Each structure stands twice: as structure tokens, then as C-alpha cells.
């Protein structure tokens, strides 16, 4: 039996993963999601920098900070960063930061998410309808 077959067999027999067992504790599940949110933000910066063919030193130059400080931010430091700093870094890689407060209550959560999707679509339509420079 190879890894793939063994994996499928374990899923079929209903065996759980360590992550699933840890997430039974709401506090730990919340902490894992907090760590994940930081990792995903770092990943978004990495991808934005790649799109711009930009290295950390160039990002540091654009936001007038030391390269070591940017490196720290992109390796866990964003968790303690002020929103203004994240916005400044995002602007330097030609992005904007969207801040959302999503309620835990399922009904309220759905309402907010529906509204956010609506608002983003409306914003996107406005941006795409703006006349291009020189047009």
C-alpha cells in the first residue's frame, strides 16, 4: 500500500487528524486561525512583491525603512504591526488593505459577508468604469 492508498483508507475508516483533534478546543482553533491569518498576509505580500519584481530591500527603500525591519515584518513581525504600517507597505506594492470586522454570530456574519461582497463588486465596477488616463 502506498501513501496515497493508505491515506484514502484512513479517511474511509473515519480516522481524524491531529489538527481536527486540536480544533475541538475553540481557544486553540482560534489561535491556529490567528497564526494562519498572519501567514496568509505574509504570503500576499510575497506574491505582490513577486508581481512587482521587488525584493525586500526595494520595499524597504519605498517605505523608508531598514531592510532588516522589512525582513522581520515578513517573517512574523506583521502580527504586531500597526494598521498604518501594513497600509504603507501594501501601497508600496501597489495594493490596498481591506479591513473587515466579521461577527461570530452566523446570521450577522452572513449579512456582513453579503454586504462586503456587494460593496466590493460595486467598488470594482466603479474602478473599471473610470476613464483611463489620456482617454
Amino acid at each position, binding site marked *: 500500500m502506498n501513501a496515497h492508498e493508505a491515506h484514502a483508507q484512513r479517511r474511509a475508516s473515519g480516522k481524524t487528524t491531529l489538527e481536527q483533534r486540536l480544533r475541538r478546543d475553540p481557544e486553540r482553533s482560534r489561535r491556529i486561525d490567528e*497564526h494562519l491569518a498572519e501567514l496568509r498576509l505574509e504570503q500576499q505580500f510575497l506574491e505582490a512583491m513577486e508581481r512587482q519584481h521587488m525584493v525586500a530591500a526595494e520595499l524597504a527603500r519605498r517605505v523608508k525603512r531598514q531592510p532588516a525591519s522589512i525582513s522581520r515584518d515578513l517573517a512574523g513581525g506583521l502580527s504586531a504591526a500597526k494598521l498604518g504600517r501594513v497600509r504603507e507597505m501594501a501601497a508600496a506594492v501597489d495594493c490596498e488593505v481591506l479591513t473587515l470586522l466579521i461577527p461570530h454570530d452566523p446570521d450577522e456574519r452572513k449579512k456582513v459577508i453579503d454586504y462586503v461582497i456587494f460593496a466590493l463588486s460595486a467598488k470594482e465596477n466603479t474602478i473599471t468604469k473610470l476613464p483611463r488616463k489620456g482617454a
Partner: protein
Amino acid sequence: MGKQRTSDDLDLLIGVIRSFEWFWEADGTMPALDAFEGLPANDQDAVVATFKHWGDLPRGLRISETRVNEEHDNPKIFAAKAGKHRFTVFHAAVDVWIVHGYYAKRKAKLDKVGRATVERAIRAKDDYEERVERGVYYERT
């Protein structure tokens, strides 16, 4: 001597793209899981988040070297990082990766302990492939 484990302990997590399982020694132990269980809860959560992030990352996207670093080229051995904690990982099948060992990073460069852990992971990959081939790796309770 590590704790005796069963296939119930094997799976670390199943991501959207990649799944991770602990290396299962021939003697029935899973040393990387023992090391994981010895970490403080918050550090464990950070380790799980690193693997989850890697497991969900679409193919073709580069993960930050500050989170997953290639420690050896042939065979490929990676280190998944969370703070000072490092877990060595090798590829097993299309979407399955094996978490083999653990070391705590103390210096900027790979130190003696880290290097030895990577070397053990290289040998473990051969051992894993040989036992899967013989049909004795997963064929345990």
C-alpha cells in the same frame, strides 16, 4: 525510547492541496510527533498553522523561505518553521508529505544538530520507500 504509536496518530493534517503525516519508525514510534507534543500549546498551534498554510497553498506558488526552507536538494528535504522550531519534511506521494524530525534553531545558519536532523531525514526517506515497497510501512494497526 519514544511512545508506541498506531495509525490513529499518523495524520497531522489534510490541506486543500497537500497532506502531512508523521514518520512512523519501524519500532512503532513517531519521534517528530513526540517532539511536537513536548512543545508549549501556543507553539504547537503555530506549527500546525505553518503546515496548514503550506498544505492549502496552490501548486506553483512559492512559499516564503521564512516559513518553509529547502535544507537539502537531492533528495529534497524541507524544514517547516514556526519560531525557533523546525520540522524536517520529505515528499512521499503526489499530495502526501512526511514529517520526519525536529530540531530547535539556535543560530542563523544550519548548526550541527540541524545538519544531523537533515541527514537523518535523508536516510529516513530511503527507509520509508524501502518499507512501503516491501508492504510493511502502512500495513500496521
